[in-house]
């Protein structure tokens, strides 16, 4: 049996399904529901077995087309930076506010992706977000929490 990344992913899915199945059996149901033909754990149990079945088959059966990924050509660093920026964005959006965090997120993302046209970068972050905010908050009446704009008296 040839071991490749697809098989390893299938093995991980097999382990995940086993864990899912174990957790499904741990779901607490009401006492009167325990022996019912269907209760809260029935469907998840079927799913757990289905996961084991399909991933098991994928591990056992030969792979007709092996997917080869050339890791040398992949931009792991930039992707990781973008993910970290997105996490920071997610962490600060509620506390700082939509306008400032979104604008800074866009500006820093453009920068880390290699953009250096500062005026365009600025226009497509701060004024763009302000216009988008107006569309959502002003026109469509969708509430946007923004402590920063509130603190400087721009938003009510």
């Amino acid at each position, binding site marked *: 049996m040839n071991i490749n990344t*697809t098989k390893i*992913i*299938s093995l991980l*899915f097999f382990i995940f*399904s086993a864990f*899912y199945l174990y*957790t*499904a059996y741990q779901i*607490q*149901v*009401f006492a009167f529901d325990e022996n*019912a*033909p*269907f*209760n*809260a*754990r*029935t469907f*998840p149990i079927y*799913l757990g077995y*289905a*996961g084991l079945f*399909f*991933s098991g088959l*994928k591990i056992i059966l030969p792979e*007709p*087309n092996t*997917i080869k*990924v050339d890791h040398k*050509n*992949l*931009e*792991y660093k*930039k*992707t990781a930076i*973008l*993910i970290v920026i*997105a*996490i920071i*964005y*997610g*962490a600060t*959006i*509620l506390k700082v506010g*939509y306008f400032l965090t*979104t604008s800074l*997120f*866009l500006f820093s*993302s453009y920068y880390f*992706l*290699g*953009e250096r046209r500062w005026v*365009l970068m600025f226009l*497509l972050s701060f004024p763009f977000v302000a216009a988008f905010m107006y569309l*959502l908050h002003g026109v*469509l*009446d*969708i509430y*946007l*929490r923004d402590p920063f704009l509130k603190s400087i008296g721009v938003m009510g």
Partner: protein
Amino acid sequence: MIEGILIGLTTALTLQNILMVMVGCFFGTIIGMLPGLGPMTAIALMIPITYGFDPATGLILMAGVYYGAVFGGSTSSILLNAPGVPGTVATSFDGYPMAQQGKAGKALAIAAWSSFAGGTLSAIYLLFMAPSLSKVSLSFRSPDYFALMILGLTAIAAFSSKGQFLKAMMMVVLGLMLASVGQDSLSDITRFTFDNMNLTDGISFVLVVMATFAMSEALTIILKRNDPTSAAKQVSLTELGSIKINKEERSKMYKTIPRSSIIGFLIGVLPGAGATIASFLAYGMERNVVNDEEKEKFGKGSVNGLSAPETANNAACSGSFVPMLTLGIPGSGTTAVMLGALLGFGVQPGPRLYMTNPEIFWSIIMSMYIGMVILLILNLPLIPYIARILAVPKNYLIPLILFFSVTGIYVMSFNNFDIYLMIGIAVVATFLRLYDFPMPPLILAFVLGGLMEENLRRSLLLSNGSWEFLWDRTLTLCILLTTILIVVWHFYKSIIRK
């Protein structure tokens, strides 16, 4: 019926109502284009405005928004591979590859014409078949629904190319597993929440679709930036292409549209089924119907592959009005919102709607057709401008996609946890995509998960735990046999190829 049509036309063709359809289509298109804001949000936003009008005008406005948002959703599917609604996921399978080949304008034109044709044909079906179709949809029981969902998920196997059936099935199971997180719909018992309150209501559809499509697409583009094959794609993305559809493409559409509109309409009539199943089934059926040469093009920018789901999802939109208007049972989430609005107007939908408020019933049907014409007139000339979104360089487009994704989740939940969860799912999805694990099966399974469990629950409780319900009814048996046929055919074809 002629009298009804005339009543409908008289109501729908007033200046105010035509204006409402136009406004609805325009705003619907804009809102539908924004990933995360689909028809349901658009219609929900319109409800307070509609209360200022009479019921017929209010519903006409909402119907316009509905069609506009569905078309707008297709636009973001084609241009950004970011379907805002489940009904347009299948559109991205061939629409996005076509846009990557520099045919974005053409893909949008095909989508516009297919939507128009699908909507028009289904409005005609609705006109003549509404009374009898409501009877058919009433005959569907839980086992039939369960079998239909199994069929829908199995049809996904048809989407995956050679050697990917098991990968697709693993993604189906993963989608169903994600859908099982949260409270059980009947007993309210929490499952797989690990005492995290944020998971009690389950994982939202918008979150999963944003993570697996928009966000993971953006991350994949960055990850493969130095890949010679993806570099070629980046160059072609800046070419907008013509919106003209040539003779060969038109002849393909002529065959696809009628059969997809029938599937879309029939599926749309079934309460709860809606545009998603319709578009996936139409895509799967189209792939099985076309010749081997065309089949190879599926997933790589096939005209049939784009036209089929676009026709079907619009046809299903009209179809979903049948149970709502004649039975008072919404055919989709969107029509459920509209049902709420109708009740707010003091109109009780049901079989008596014909007699008590004929002007409402017929004017909605007539306005559907008018809405389709207006949508085409408004959107076709705008296609070159809409498609210019693609001309935005990747350095700007990728952060903007991430921004739309996070905003979609933020305005929905105001919750940091959902943003982290979305980023986590997107990272896993990006890794899975690298190894050709298909994402559409995961999405469809996620959408159908709750309904599937509900119908299995009812079926098993009614049959006292016996699985005989699968072959007790002829209809269920027929659907199941079709499913088995698809699986057997798939394996037979794989063996033949080997």
